[in-house]
């Protein structure tokens, strides 16, 4: 099976000639990536509703939701991203797309963070701060037969309204009409 004749190793020259030169002078020439390549994600701030589905599914906590006063911030930190694309899979509004960028090194760590800032919704009656963002409420309202006013209600107000409705129905409450 092994031909020990001295000239056989020289067949290497033929193989090398047929193959040519296969390496590329990167970065002076473009890198060799295919169409399917997964690079960093791009979050379309106009579409994002701040629901946090991507945050739940991200294996490495690259996507995080931060509460800052009355704002909710979705933070994407490239330093932890593993480019799996699960966030793009689960986003209900397709706000996340996977780009082909991978040359992401920088010497300023702020460049690795990108944020989408959302306004948290507050209850129209009592001003309680809600878990949802304004955009989430609009999203729900556009798909589910719920009035905007109801969707804006905080959980305490909803409970109160439910109980009031019960009591009203049983004649235990009198609603004072506006004069």
């Amino acid at each position, binding site marked *: 099976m092994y031909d020990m004749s001295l000239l056989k190793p020289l067949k*290497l020259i033929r193989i*090398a000639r047929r193959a*040519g030169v*296969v390496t590329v002078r990167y970065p002076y020439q473009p890198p060799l990536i295919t169409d399917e390549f997964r690079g960093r994600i791009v979050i379309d701030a106009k579409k994002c509703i701040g629901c946090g589905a991507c945050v739940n599914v991200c294996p490495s906590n690259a996507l995080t939701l931060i509460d800052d006063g009355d704002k909710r911030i979705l933070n994407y930190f490239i330093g932890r991203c593993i480019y799996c694309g699960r966030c793009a899979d689960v986003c209900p509004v397709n706000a996340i797309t996977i780009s082909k960028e991978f040359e992401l090194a920088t010497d300023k760590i702020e460049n690795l963070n990108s944020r989408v800032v959302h306004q948290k919704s507050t209850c129209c009656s009592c001003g309680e701060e809600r878990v949802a963002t304004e955009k989430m409420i609009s999203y729900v309202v556009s798909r589910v037969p719920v009035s905007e006013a109801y969707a804006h209600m905080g959980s305490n107000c909803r409970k109160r309204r439910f109980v009031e409705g019960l009591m009203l129905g049983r004649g235990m409450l009198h609603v004072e009409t506006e004069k």
Partner: protein
Amino acid sequence: MLLQVSLIVISFIIIVLLAPVLDGIERKIKAKLHSRVGPPTILQSWYDILKLFSKELVLPEGGYLVPILVGLLYTLVLVTLVLMPYGFPNPLTLGLPDIILLLVLIIALQLLWSASSLVSGNPYATVGVFREVGLGLVNEFFLALGLIAVALVTGSLGFVGLAHMAPPRLAYALILLSLAIACYVASGRIPYDIGEAEPELASGVLIEFSGPILGLALYAHYLKRAILYGLVANLIVLPLYPVLGPVFSVIAFLAAMIVLWIIFAIISIVLARSRIDLAPRGLLKIYLPLAIAYSILGYIGV
């Protein structure tokens, strides 16, 4: 005489500048055979040596002894370059038996190379030297034997004998083959670069060298290759000296040295590294038959 000395000076300068460039050419050829781009230019080995010189000096365990020995090695290399023939017998040897002189200088170079690694005090280097010396025992013996055979065949202990005599042809060809192999092995080439086996010994003999010491050692290594291949080139060109005259002899010598370097480079690319226990046996299987053959043929005058 003046012509010869000036030719020697010019060639000396050419070789000193050219040796790293030849190594660069070799790297480019290797890259082509590996289907890759390799170094950007053939001057890359020069850039590497210069870069190494720009780094700080870090002394290994052996202390100052290491750079001193490497410096000594380099000096001796230059001395050998001054005293070796250049396609014609070198007048600067002042009539000394320069075949023996060259032999002694080559062996001294090998020993200095080993000594400078040994004093660095690293187990890898020690094993590497151990291996090199073990291999060298076989190889230098046959190198010496070959050169002595040349002297016997030309009847003179100096290279001048080669230039003036018509040596027996077949025996001479065999001696030349044997010496070509011996020089190939002595220049530390795969399959016999066992002392510097990088994957096995983490660079073996070179492991403790860094910065300027490594730069100088590598430079000396390339020049040593020039000397060894030059020796083979000389053995080819010297008999033709009476016909060619000094100028063409030098040109033929330099051309032969370059061609030999490239051929040896290609051989080292297509083969793999041998092992310290297999190598001496393998070499003996090549040298002994050749030695016996050329001894007999030389004796009967073929």
